[in-house]
């Protein structure tokens, strides 16, 4: 404040003595130019440092060295930023209708910057009225052939494999990055239909050798899950054998629609209105509880082998999730409460029937900008 006062008084003095065009005002110009240059220099240095650090991480990964969880000051600073408002403003900006002549240039620039394949885009570029609409574009027929093998689980999205494995042990933890894990219950919700067994029943579960028994058990688990979803003690329970997870990251240039990985029936939808941290590689190793704090939509149901859940997690730039099976669902809404730990909003699809049936490869949802 004193600096600004001094600057103002100097400027006034300069104006009164020299008529506003003298040596002092020239000095102020230099002062402001210097400050701007220093800021640009600092931003450039920070950017260069980030590129250097990311390169080091990439080199380490190529050598097979796994990067451990490393919280830093920038990650702590992210918690103070109004990321939801930033995301919504970004969404509003990218929703602006662009002049027809400008559209191909903007979308080509976006594709060039984020390595998108424009040849796959379903419609001519000038038919997408805004960047937001272009971002959630559909693809030409046959661009994504679905693996016809009935004994395979297909990828629901275009993206990069971050983590995968089998869920086992108490609490059923998923590793965010080496040195930090989160519970699958925190991700899917405490009332998840995830098939769990208490530790005392583990022996019984492990000796499950008969297929008929397995089928019966599956049915009884389902009855118990529906009847008493919150009675089970998730902290002391272990996941049933044969439960797996796979985490896939979508880069900004990737095709951003979610498809069905198998033939299944969606029974429940849960919407967690959380934060909107970025979810890039850097964020996964610096921000604690990234996936379980961010806004997300969880779909749970059954397929021929049992339980199936798809969690679509938003980020700052891609904050809203559109469900094709429930178009009225709105995400990334303005926050009314300060607390970030609100219970999820849940909807049971067709509680008397079989839920929403989807075939492998069917479109389920899309990520939208802002």
């Amino acid at each position: 404040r004193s600096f600004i006062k001094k600057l103002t008084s100097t400027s006034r003095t300069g104006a009164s003595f020299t008529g506003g065009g003298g040596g002092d005002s020239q000095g102020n110009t230099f002062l402001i130019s210097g400050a701007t240059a220093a800021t640009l220099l600092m931003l450039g240095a920070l950017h260069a440092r980030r590129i250097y650090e990311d390169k080091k991480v990439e080199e380490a990964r190529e050598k097979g060295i796994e990067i451990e969880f490393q919280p830093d000051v920038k990650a702590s600073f992210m918690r103070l930023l109004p990321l939801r408002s930033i995301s919504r403003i970004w969404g509003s900006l990218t929703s602006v209708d662009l002049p027809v002549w400008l559209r191909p240039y903007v979308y080509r620039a976006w594709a060039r910057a984020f390595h998108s394949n424009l040849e796959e885009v379903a419609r001519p570029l000038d038919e997408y009225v805004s960047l937001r609409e272009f971002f959630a574009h559909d693809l030409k027929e046959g661009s994504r052939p679905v693996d016809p093998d009935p004994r395979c689980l297909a990828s629901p999205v275009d993206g990069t494999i971050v983590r995968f494995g089998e869920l086992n042990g108490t609490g059923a933890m998923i590793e965010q990055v080496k040195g930090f894990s989160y519970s699958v219950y925190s991700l899917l919700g405490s009332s998840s239909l995830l098939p769990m067994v208490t530790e005392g029943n583990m022996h019984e579960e492990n000796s499950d050798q008969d297929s008929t028994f397995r089928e019966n058990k599956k049915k009884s688990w389902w009855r118990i899950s529906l009847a008493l979803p919150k009675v089970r003690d998730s902290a002391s329970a272990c996941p049933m054998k044969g439960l797996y997870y796979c985490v896939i990251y979508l880069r900004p240039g990737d095709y951003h629609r979610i498809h069905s990985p198998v033939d299944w029936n969606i029974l429940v939808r849960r919407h967690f209105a959380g934060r909107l941290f970025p979810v890039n590689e850097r964020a996964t190793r610096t921000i604690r509880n990234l996936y379980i704090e961010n806004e997300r939509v969880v779909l749970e149901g059954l397929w021929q082998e049992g339980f199936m859940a798809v969690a679509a997690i938003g980020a700052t730039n891609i904050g809203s999730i559109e469900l094709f099976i429930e178009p009225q669902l709105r995400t990334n809404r303005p926050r009314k409460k300060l607390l970030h730990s609100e219970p999820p909003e849940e909807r049971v699809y067709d509680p008397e029937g079989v839920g929403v049936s989807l075939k492998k490869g069917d479109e389920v949802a899309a990520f939208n900008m802002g």
Partner: protein
Amino acid sequence: STVVLVFQAPTLKSMTSTDPSEFQFCIKQGDRVRVGEALGRWND
């Protein structure tokens, strides 16, 4: 944005095997995948 899949898949009936599961992922960490490509397979 990120998508997390959690699913139940077929397991071996015999516990004497060293491999506890019939389901096998056919991907590696860092792989690029596209919609419809297999993430894993299992034997009948």
